[in-house]
Structures are given as C-alpha cells and as structure tokens.
C-alpha cells in the first residue's frame, strides 16, 4: 500500500469509533521508545547510518502479524501535506513530520498501531484506542513490543532499562497519555488548579498536538513524565486514577454550570452555533474553539438529533491539511477560511439551533 490517502479511513469513519467515557476522553494512547543496540541515536547518526537502521527496523515491523496489510512510507516520499494530515490524525508527531531521508512510518489497517522509525529514537511505537482504554492500549503495545524484540537487538541496560536518546524517556520508555475534552473545567475556570495539581503528581498536561502546543478546542493531553524506577503497570495505574478524578471533576463542573449559570452556558453554546452555522470566513483556531462548545452542547442534550461524531468529524476535516486535501488548488490561509466556513455551514444545515430545555442524549454513556 503506497497511497496514504487511500489507506487512511475517512474522517467520518474515524470519528465514529467509540470507547468508554468518550464524552470526555477522546482517545487513549501508549507509546514505547526503543533503540537498536549498536547504532547512534537518530539525532546524532549520519544519514547512511539512519538509512541502515531504517532498513533493519522497517521489514521487522512490517512482518509482525499486527501489521498485516499495513501502510509503509519513507518520510522522504511523503509530501508536506501528507505529513500534516498524519499529524492531524495523531499518527505521527510534529517532530516526525519534519523528518526526511532515513525516517519512516508504518501504520496498520485499523490505525490502532503506528510506528515511527527514526524519530527521536530508532523506534517509537504507539497503540491508539478510542475513549478511556489505557490498560488495553498498554497490553496491546506490550505484546507488539514482545514480538518485535525477537527480531531486533534492543539497547537495554540492567540498571537503566531501555536506553533512549533523551534521558527523560529512559527505563521503560513509556508514555501513557489520554486526550481529554474539558470545556466544563475551562468555562468554570477550574482548569488551572486542576492542571497544577496534575503537575504536582508528576504528570504533564499539554495541548492538542503534544509538546509545546496550545490547548485548542479545550482539548488537553495528560501523560506521565517519569519513566525510570517505576513499572509500566504502576504508571498506567496512576494515570487511570488521575483520569477518573479529572472525569469526575469535569462532570461536576458541567453540572454546576448548568445549575448555577445556565444562561452563561446557553449563551456560549448558542453563540458558537450561531457563528458556525452562519459564518462566511472562519479560521481553524476559532472553528476548533466553537466546535468544542458545540460538542459540549451535544453532551448536554441541547442539540437533539445531532450526533457527537458530526462535531468530531468537523473537528478533523476543518484542520488546515485535511481541508486543503479536499481541494485541488493550493490555497492561501484566507481562501481556506472562506472554504472552511462554507463546509461547516453546509454540514450544520440540518442541525437545528440549540433547545433551551436540555434532554439527555439518547447515546449517553
């Protein structure tokens, strides 16, 4: 399989995957960092060495049973637009998108496994699941890694564990993370204390696309920071505990807002709908922030008949690269804003304006 666009499932399909607590937890992900024993890390290796490492790892990964019918792409064969689409799908990191000769990507059919070769480490493999499924994601990537270690000599030290390019990933090389939609905590102005207390527990809170990114659309990523001195299971467990707390706080915040400041909530959501359904030019950032409010409205039962998946789909298709891909000509940012607004208006034309008496949505979980 060589064309990434034929390979990836449609945005509509990818946003209809469901998991536990997916009102709040959009996805769960566990990634492992691994390196080959006798090679320099990608950031320090010269081009021929990187190419050699890629030639060792890629066939080994592609031959795994989980990767049957997978997509493989060398980063130098992907266009800038392809790479950006993969970033928007959370299949590669922004850092990996900047890579070229000597780096590659393997993604399986269902997009549940994705392996970056020669990102910061020789191997970055991740298992991705919808909703809150950290334990399942860890079990999946653990088995994947156990298969791969039969074919690749990992750099491993008895004392320090798996050796990684950056000392922050040393030991287990694990990053357990969940993507959370927290509009209630943001509107209720409780998000900062929550972030601070999560930080105090040694966990990181980041924006939509990971390290150093903005929390657009009230989407936050929570992940472990420490990787050495603790087992994978303990790390997963700690994340699970913290996430269940955050979910509870978010639910409470939504409830409190509805009880104490219903007008504020209805005002935000009504305005969001008004702009999205009627705008003729809209930036991707504004779209995301307003779609977040609409998503909240769907969760609160203010849009009977509208499905959360429609909002999630727009969340993806209005991102710059996804939008660009649907059009043949290369557009300027201003032209994209016009087309984005056209698309959103079209998709929302059958969604009636929010009701004032919320009904619980039929598909509540």
């Amino acid at each position: 399989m060589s064309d990434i666009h034929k390979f990836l499932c449609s945005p509509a399909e990818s946003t209809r995957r469901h998991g536990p607590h997916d009102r709040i937890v959009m996805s769960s992900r566990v990634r492992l960092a691994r390196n080959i024993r006798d090679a320099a890390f990608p950031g320090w290796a010269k081009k021929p060495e990187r190419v050699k490492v890629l030639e060792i790892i890629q066939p080994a990964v592609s031959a795994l049973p989980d990767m049957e019918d997978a997509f493989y792409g060398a980063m130098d064969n992907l266009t800038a637009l392809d790479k950006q689409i993969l970033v928007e799908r959370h299949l590669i990191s922004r850092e990996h998108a900047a890579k070229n000769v000597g780096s590659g990507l393997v993604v399986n059919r269902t997009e549940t496994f994705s392996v970056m070769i020669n990102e910061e480490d020789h191997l970055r493999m991740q298992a991705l699941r919808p909703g809150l499924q950290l334990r399942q994601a860890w079990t999946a990537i653990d088995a994947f890694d156990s298969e791969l270690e039969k074919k690749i000599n990992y750099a491993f030290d008895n004392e320090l564990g798996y050796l990684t390019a950056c000392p922050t990933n040393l030991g287990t090389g694990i990053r357990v993370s969940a993507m959370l939609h927290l509009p209630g905590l943001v509107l209720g102005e409780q998000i900062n204390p929550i972030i601070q207390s999560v930080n105090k527990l040694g966990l990181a809170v980041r924006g939509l696309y990971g390290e150093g990114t903005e929390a657009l659309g009230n989407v936050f990523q929570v992940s472990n920071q420490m990787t050495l001195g603790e087992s994978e299971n303990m790390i997963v467990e700690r994340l699970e505990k913290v996430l269940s707390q955050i979910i509870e706080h978010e639910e409470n915040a939504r409830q409190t807002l509805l009880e104490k400041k219903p007008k504020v909530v209805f005002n935000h959501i009504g305005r969001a709908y008004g702009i999205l359904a009627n705008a003729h030019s809209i930036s991707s950032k504004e779209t995301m922030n307003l779609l977040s409010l609409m998503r909240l409205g769907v969760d609160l039962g203010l849009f009977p008949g509208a499905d959360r998946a429609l909002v999630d789909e727009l969340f993806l298709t209005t991102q710059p690269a996804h939008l660009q891909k649907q059009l043949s000509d290369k557009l300027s940012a201003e032209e994209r804003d016009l087309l984005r607004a056209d698309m959103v208006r079209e998709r929302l034309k059958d969604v009636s304006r929010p009701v004032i008496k919320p009904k619980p949505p039929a598909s509540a979980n």
Partner: protein
Amino acid sequence: MQCSICKEKPASVHLTQIVGDKMQKLDLCDDCAKLKGVNDPSGFAMADIMLGLGAAQELEHAVGGTEVKCPRCGFTQADFKKSGRLGCPECYKTFAEGLSGLLKTMHKGTRHAGKSPESLRASREISDRLKLLQKKLAKAIESEDFELAARLRDEIKQIPERPVAAKNAPR
C-alpha cells in the same frame, strides 16, 4: 532571590513539585516564567524546564570541565548541552557519572523497574543475584565473619559468566 533561568531579574514565580518524597524547587522571573509557559495551562511541565536548565551544567560539573568524548560515537558534553539528547546507547556509560544526578531529579528512581527483553531476563536475574551476594560479602567482611565470607565467595564463583546475547538483527 534571582531567577534560576536568566540569573538577572528577581524571581517572582516560585514552583515546587513534589514527587514521592522528593521536592524540586524552581524560581523564575516574570519574563522567563512567561517564556516557559508557566502560566499557560497547555504547555508547562516542570521536568521540561529542569532538563533544559540543569542537565548540561550537571554533566559538565561531573566531568570537571574536561571534554569527555563517547568512544563509540564521538558525542561530547557540549553536544548534550546543545540538544539535551545523547549520541548513542554507549553514551550512558560514558557520561554515567554526570547523568546519575540528573536522573535522580528527573525520575522516580534510578533503577529500572519495568519490562525487560525476554532474552536478557536470565542475565538480568544473574546480575541481580551477583549484586546481592557481593553486598552480603562486603558486610560479612566488615563484621569479620570470615566463615560466612568464604561461603559467599564460593557461591559467587559458582555463578556462570554473564551470557552474551548472540543474536543479531536483522534475521
């Protein structure tokens, strides 16, 4: 109190992170705090700052200012200062001394407690056993229990040499 990043302006933002029984402190001026996104809910994580801040100095300090070079890949501490990343797996041995302090502040512990590759699990167990016996031996000698020491020495002698993993990628 001075800002721990720019070392010029007075610190006005004071951060403390407690993990387990360890406490880390960081004092920043307004500008550096903003720059590091301390007030920005999306981006701040203390380890990110600590890594950029203390890592290189710590490494430099430990090797006494002389330029240490990794014999395997030619990586130097100056390179670490620039990137915050190491050159190759061997670098962890080359820069072990400087890294140990850094790892202590960065992680929960300094000894790996998770998964290990199946093929190395046996040798890992052997090395654990060896370490334990050596510790006991040192104690026995210290307390002048030479009978026990002799027994432990025999036991240590019986532990097979560390098996060398002989497989090579790719197959």
